[in-house]
């Protein structure tokens, strides 16, 4: 398929018995912004990958280029050099194969919850009956069947993000890109949303790239973390989350969890 050098394939071969293919490959990607005070390197030679059905999270201090990287992958921003590809195809612009969930609420206010979820399908010209089937499924998945006909202004923040997730999934993208989707939510809602997302990943076999500032959240959700640093924005460490620790909130006070968390925090502050 692709001829990208060893790291990915080795990784897959050594650590995972049933080798998963790489969904996303980022190869020495750089992004430079030209500003009034000169040029600013937001991303410097970043290389990374995301496997099929993998949950990968980017953590790092504010301004280290997490959103920039996600936006390049979404096709909303152009790389200055290097490349990014999805399933072997080079990313050159936005497309329905990558669903994006933003931190800000981006539902279409003039559409009902159901029509929001069906938006991508309608663009494609999917017939009404089929659209209904899909929206029914995702309304149920995110627990908003009762709100199918509500307008976004009638929803709480958490509900809005659930619709945004459903809207992205209904398009059956190859992967989800999520930029701090739960940052604006209160602790309880946030925790519910994490559970929901884990459920979704299991049921939909979704490949997800996630961004968060919350280390607990990162450990709870991810199989792998990339820790980034700023000036210039770069990846400084890749951390594998032990399967036992993942998705297990009870372990939050255990020694290994605290150790892992400390390791990440130290990296961020070093």
């Amino acid at each position, binding site marked *: 398929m692709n001829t990208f050098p060893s790291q990915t394939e080795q990784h897959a071969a050594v650590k995972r018995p049933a080798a998963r293919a790489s969904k996303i490959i980022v190869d020495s990607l750089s992004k430079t912004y030209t500003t009034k005070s000169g040029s600013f390197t937001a991303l410097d030679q970043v290389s990374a990958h995301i496997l099929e059905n993998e949950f990968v999270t980017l953590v790092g201090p504010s301004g280290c280029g997490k959103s920039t990287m996600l936006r390049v992958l979404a096709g909303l921003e152009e790389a200055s050099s290097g490349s990014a590809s999805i399933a072997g195809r080079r990313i050159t612009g*936005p497309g329905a194969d990558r669903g994006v969930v*933003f931190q800000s609420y981006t539902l279409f206010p003039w559409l009902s919850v159901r029509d929001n979820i069906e938006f991508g399908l309608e663009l494609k010209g999917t017939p009404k009956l089929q659209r209904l089937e899909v929206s029914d499924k995702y309304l149920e998945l995110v627990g908003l069947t009762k709100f199918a006909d509500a307008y976004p202004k009638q929803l709480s923040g958490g509900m809005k993000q659930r619709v945004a997730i459903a809207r992205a999934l209904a398009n059956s993208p190859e992967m989800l890109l999520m930029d701090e989707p739960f940052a604006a939510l209160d602790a309880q809602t946030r925790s519910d949303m994490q559970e929901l997302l884990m459920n979704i990943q299991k049921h939909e076999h979704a490949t997800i790239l996630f961004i968060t500032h919350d280390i607990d959240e990162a450990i709870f959700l991810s199989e792998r973390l990339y820790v980034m640093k700023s000036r210039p924005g770069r990846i400084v460490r890749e951390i594998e989350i032990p399967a036992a620790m993942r998705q297990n909130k009870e372990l939050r006070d255990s020694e290994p969890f605290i150790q892992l968390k400390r390791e990440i925090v130290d990296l961020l502050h070093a």
Partner: protein
Amino acid sequence: METLSNLFKIRGEMSRKAYLATVVGTFAAVFVLWSLLSYSQLVDPTFLPSPGTVGKTFWHSVLSADFWGYVGISSYRVLMGYLFTCLLAIPLGILAGTFKFAEAVLVPLTEFIRYMPATAFIPLIIVWIGLGEPAKIMVIFVGCFFQMLLMVADNARAVSNDLLQASYTLGAGKLQVLRKVLLPALLPELMNTMRLIMGWAWSYLIAAELFAASSGLGFMIIRAQRYLQTDMIFMGILVIGMLGLIIDRLFALLNKKLFPWAEGGR
């Protein structure tokens, strides 16, 4: 009970009843002041006719065919001028608010022209196209078009970038983004702009009719001035105000009916 501190809360709420009561109260206060000043003869009736006189004049007018003819012709002029304005300013405004090139072509030039007083163009318009109906419609157009173009461009620019980007990531092409996102997103604000411009159109109509007309509400007012019929002037102004108010309320109603999804809502 509305407490005093509540009334002075920034962006505070008010019950609908209290709000309406305040509105009626303000109208009543102005009316009482007017009555006091006129009936007490504190002000010469030539300058300030009493409400009773104005009411009588209004009643006489309502019964005359001339008056309705004037209302008709004035409304016709406003509607035509307004229609042409909307037909041109809305698409051009959307273009200017959406494409940088269109902005560069349209906005600076429009900004420049907008500061030229439209009423000063009236003599020029008369020289160019004479005194007929087209001239009056043209005055309204010149007065409203440039303003409206800029306002619509602002409306289009105000559509959240996040919304556009979200639609791209859902697979929308450029045309789909324009038609299915930008346009619906800007409609409520566009309606507001249309509502404001309707007010402007009436002002320019009167200006046009004051200068050069032998019919219409503006003409009625200027003729009354010649004969010092202040009551008639008052009546004319009030009728124009009421027509404006009716149209404004219709717009507001339409806005509520068409855009139940919009936040806030006036």
